[in-house]
């Protein structure tokens, strides 16, 4: 089984988000970049398939050279080979189109992406890949078993879970729950050393429309101070919620 894990290089979850160049660009100054958390759950599951079922695992990121440390980290965790598509990931359709090209040419059986990237928050890339290539697709995936060509997945739905029967080739949108939090791996020295020797192939982007463009960013308006209600006067909270906030 050949697995491709799509990894988005995103600001660490503790990052303060600022904008620059007249609010037209994200300010990367002082920001630490990491593997998108949803993709890390996916990569961890891919490692399980590698170790238990002999799968080959490649990772891919669309981005400029600055994303390579993130790809190396995935290699240090255990992926066999890395691919970087040399282009700025401007829009979900564009990224999906680039990744679809890699999937098609590489003959992957399973494509693991994240449910959503925590920077762009598009939640669309895995769906786009699946649709461009006519592959089966399970989103918000919290369980995946594969036996030959047959896949059994669990999807998180509003208020519960859905068990799904499908087959390879398959795309999933991974999220928390796909693996246990305690299974996530921090690369060790040996992994880091080995990662240096693994292939990281850089490929050019293919032609694709870029149908959306972020023209300007904005930070959320500063919040007014909290209204504190005395613990001995809970009735007041209810009346504020009812009369002022109109929330009850």
């Amino acid at each position, binding site marked *: 089984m050949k697995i491709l894990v799509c990894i988005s290089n995103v600001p660490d*979850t*503790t990052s303060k988000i600022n904008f620059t160049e007249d609010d037209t660009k994200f300010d990367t100054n002082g920001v630490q970049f990491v593997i998108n958390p949803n993709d890390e759950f996916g990569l961890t599951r891919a490692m399980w398939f590698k170790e238990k079922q002999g799968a080959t695992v490649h990772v891919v990121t669309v981005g400029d050279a600055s994303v390579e440390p993130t790809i190396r980290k995935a290699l240090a965790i255990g992926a066999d080979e890395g691919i970087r598509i040399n282009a700025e990931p401007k829009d979900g*359709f564009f990224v999906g189109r680039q990744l679809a090209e890699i999937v098609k040419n590489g003959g992957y059986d399973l494509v693991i992406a994240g449910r959503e990237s925590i920077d762009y928050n598009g939640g*669309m890339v895995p769906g786009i890949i699946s649709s461009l290539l006519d592959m089966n697709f399970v989103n918000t995936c919290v369980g995946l078993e594969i036996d030959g060509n047959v896949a059994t997945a669990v999807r998180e739905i*509003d208020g519960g879970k859905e068990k799904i029967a499908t087959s390879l080739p398959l795309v999933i949108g991974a999220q*928390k729950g796909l693996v246990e939090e305690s299974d996530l791996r921090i690369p060790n020295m040996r992994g880091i050393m080995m990662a240096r020797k693994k292939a990281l192939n850089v490929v050019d982007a293919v032609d694709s429309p870029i149908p*959306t463009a972020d023209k300007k960013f904005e930070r959320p308006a500063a919040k007014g101070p*909290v209204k504190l209600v005395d613990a001995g006067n809970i009735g007041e909270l209810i009346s504020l919620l*009812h009369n002022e906030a109109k929330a009850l």
Partner: protein
Amino acid sequence: MSVLVYTETESGKFKKNAFEVASYAKNVADQMGASVTAIAVNAENAEELGTYGVSKVLNVSNDQLSSFNARAYASAIAQAAEAEGSKVVILSSSADSKYLGGILAAKLNAGYVPNVVAPPESTAPFVVKRTAFSNKGFAHTEIDAEIKMVGVSNNAFGMVENATSANSEAFTPNIGDADFGVKSVEVDKVVGKATIADADIVVSAGRGLKGPENWGMVEELADVLGAATACSKPVSDLGWRPHGEHVGQTGKPVASNLYIAIGISGAIQHLAGVSASKTKVVINNDPEAPFFKAADYGIVGDAFEVVPELIEKLKDFKAQNA
């Protein structure tokens, strides 16, 4: 030209977000001098959408579609957009709509912008405001494609009445076997309880509650309010509550009308995922807890005293306002 809106149903009845996205579609259509056509699957009372400005409903009745299937539904919506010549397609931000959104965007070659919080700032060029960076920022995004797809955030636009008479027509899309490559085998779902995605009110609790045995009062508070229950990440990691209740940047997003946080410190990853809620209340015994900086109302106090009393007072309030 019509603006096409996908209005979701659950067992034949429209979900609340269906009326929200219909209201949003009407706003867009008015800006563009167009009308609103809705597509719905197995809707029992399609005419209801008229209240929110929809003038035509393409109602798909097909037993194969009685349970949600992203690819088949996307296929139906794409065919409706084609039949209607729609250049703008509106979706909600529900898990189902997000599931089918990418598939549909690829089918229509559309520019798709999800998490949109306001009506288009202009329609030529077509520019919308969306959340980005997990609610830590907003982007003003231009869609430059023949077909534009907008995913409207929950509770961002609201329901706006705009009485029109809606004409319902049967619509029979061509759906093939390939669309059913993903089959639902079994659904395990709590019924009759508000879900985090749909609830007006979400009651959420954190590690301050000390252990799973103390969740009775959280559930009771949620019951009194008709609210969904949620929790912070460590609470689900510790197995005190199911993963599906974990909210925040790496859990479910919350965009409710009212969010009540009990014994939650307000870490940046937690706040990122819940800050889209309109009114936030925090109950915490540490006045320095960061959540107080992000909340609208707060009580500094011990949850084990405050919550039971809040439940009693809310019962009185509900009895008086029934």
